[in-house]
């Protein structure tokens, strides 16, 4: 393995305490933690750890929840439909598999701030049950082009050197060519699964932003170059990769900084190396404003952003500004090569039309991504 830092040490250092629920002790993830993490950091508990919290979190309580890790079983179903699949939003076909809750990184705009009310980060120990659910879904529609992502309420890979869930999942997706596994991350941890053999149906995607935004808003994440390097490593091992330039954040120098980002991408990668690049502008629920303001003050591009109530109950930039930013970024890619496939995620049909000239279903290069699903959850 060729790691710039020891990921286990790095991850462990983020946690003040790791709780393992007694019944999770036999699980591979608990066993691995017991083996790799100093014992004085670990507490085995019956049920949930008793950590007093407010009914609505204060900023400090939210921050503390990133410093405590709880290994426990997931009580309900794992599989969920993508949050973009709502009326009024054009979105990609996508299913979400939650492997935990909360994130060890700390982006100022993170939507977890709008709903997390558990006083610790959770990693679910019963991956085997998640796989059973997936198998059932697969058996019911083996030929449907289903995408499964693991990065909705926890980053797909930032804790992966500890859990090694990527390896189990890649293994599971082998032999299921119509299905695609999607890891989404802002970390640079890929080495732990690069030796896994796969069917070319695993896509590792990175949310990326100009380094200036990484530094100001995406705290504790891997820097841009590390993410791009990790992407190259994954690509060289035959994994598909994608980039989400999301959220696009307005700031004085946005044109220069996004141009530089595009320059980096287009000099380090060629269009056929990735199926798509998605774009999304800054958005958040209004309920999360207070938490962001408390945690990051108003000296952040995010808290200071001029946002208005928009589609799907989210605060968004003015539509004209969004269109301007999208059109600029798409234009820059197309200047480099018309073959770059750039699509908008979580956007209204109006913005699609104004920024790209058409709806995704009407664009040849986008149609396959937006094909209606034949599989429905029961």
């Amino acid at each position: 393995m060729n790691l710039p830092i020891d990921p286990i040490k790095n991850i462990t250092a983020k946690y003040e305490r790791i709780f393992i629920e007694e019944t999770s002790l036999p699980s591979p993830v608990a066993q691995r933690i017991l083996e790799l993490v100093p014992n004085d950091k670990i507490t085995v508990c019956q049920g949930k750890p008793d950590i007093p919290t407010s009914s609505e979190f204060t900023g400090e309580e939210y921050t503390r929840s990133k410093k405590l890790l709880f290994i426990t079983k997931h009580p309900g179903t794992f599989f969920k439909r993508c949050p973009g699949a709502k009326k009024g939003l054009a979105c990609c076909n996508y299913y979400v598999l939650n492997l935990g809750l909360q994130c060890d990184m700390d982006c100022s705009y993170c939507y977890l701030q709008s709903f997390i009310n558990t006083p610790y980060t959770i990693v679910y120990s019963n991956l085997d049950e998640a796989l059973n659910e997936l198998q059932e879904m697969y058996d019911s529609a083996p030929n449907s082009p289903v995408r499964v992502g693991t990065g909705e309420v926890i980053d797909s890979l930032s804790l992966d050197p500890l859990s090694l869930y990527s390896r189990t999942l890649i293994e599971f997706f082998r032999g299921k060519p119509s299905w695609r596994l999607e890891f989404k991350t802002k970390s640079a941890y890929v080495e732990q699964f690069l030796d896994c053999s796969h069917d070319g149906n695993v896509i590792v995607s990175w949310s990326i932003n100009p380094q200036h935004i990484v530094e100001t808003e995406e705290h504790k994440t891997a820097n841009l170059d590390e993410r791009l390097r990790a992407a190259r490593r994954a690509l060289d091992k035959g994994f598909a990769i994608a980039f989400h330039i999301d959220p696009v954040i307005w700031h004085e120098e946005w044109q220069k900084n996004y141009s530089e980002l595009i320059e980096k991408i287009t000099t380090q990668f060629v269009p056929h190396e990735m199926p798509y690049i998605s774009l999304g502008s800054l958005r958040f629920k209004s309920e999360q404003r207070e938490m962001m303001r408390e945690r990051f003050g108003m000296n952040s591009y995010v808290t200071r952003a001029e946002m208005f109530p928009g589609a799907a109950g989210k605060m968004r930039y003015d539509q004209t500004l969004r269109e301007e930013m999208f059109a600029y970024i798409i234009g820059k890619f197309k200047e480099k090569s018309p073959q770059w496939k750039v699509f908008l995620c979580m956007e209204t049909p109006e913005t699609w039309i104004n920024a790209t000239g058409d709806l995704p279903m009407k664009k040849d290069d986008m149609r396959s991504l937006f094909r209606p699903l034949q599989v429905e959850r029961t």
Partner: protein
Amino acid sequence: MVPKTPMWTIKIEPHYKPPTAMPTCKWQNVLLYRGTDFMQDLSALPFAQAYKSIYAEMSFLELAELISELIDHKISFEPSTLLEAYKFRLDAKTEKVLLALRRLPQDFYAWAKLHSLSAGDLYSLCNLPQLPEKALSHLAQLKPSRSFGIQLLDLLVDCQLMNLSEDECLKQASTFEAWRANLHTLRFPQTTKRDEQKKEYLLGLWPKSFTVRWLRQGDRAGVDVHFFVSSKKELAEKIESLQRVHNELAD
């Protein structure tokens, strides 16, 4: 008999009024309620229970005021039990608000109490290094409705956290509408500028026979256009005018 000079009388006047036949009640050396001539001593009960037996309802801000008084008079009581008696929870968030409330100007407090603002409505104030007392008093004096007041408070907190001075935030504040507009301009400078340019351009495009109003609707801004026709001919003229506007509109 009711003592002539109780050691201390609770000053707050909750919105809830106990039944008129309620006796005068004391708890230890505190006169909780002045009612009939009959004196009832509730000292055997915990404070929260004693108080609840008189005042069945208390808003959060009334409770905060009560807690503040009790603390000032060094009365020993359990704040969490008192809050719980009225279905509020003492947690880190509530505690921060309770502390901030002790520093609020009286007139603002009275306005907030009148409109039953919750801990959540006032929480943003906890994150200000310094309370904009003048501005809060001014807000109270303008007597806005609950929702307008909360909106303005939110803008004010944003502006304060953006390091705008209180004096700057208080410019053009003679009426509620003018003040809100000014705070909005301070909070949303880029959008205000863009809207102004777009507005001037768009409003200038229309013939006089159209009633045109600039409108911001959430994340979109544009014009609301009305016209009146009484015949097919008039409609054709309007369509022609609309076509001219359409042609003039820059892409």
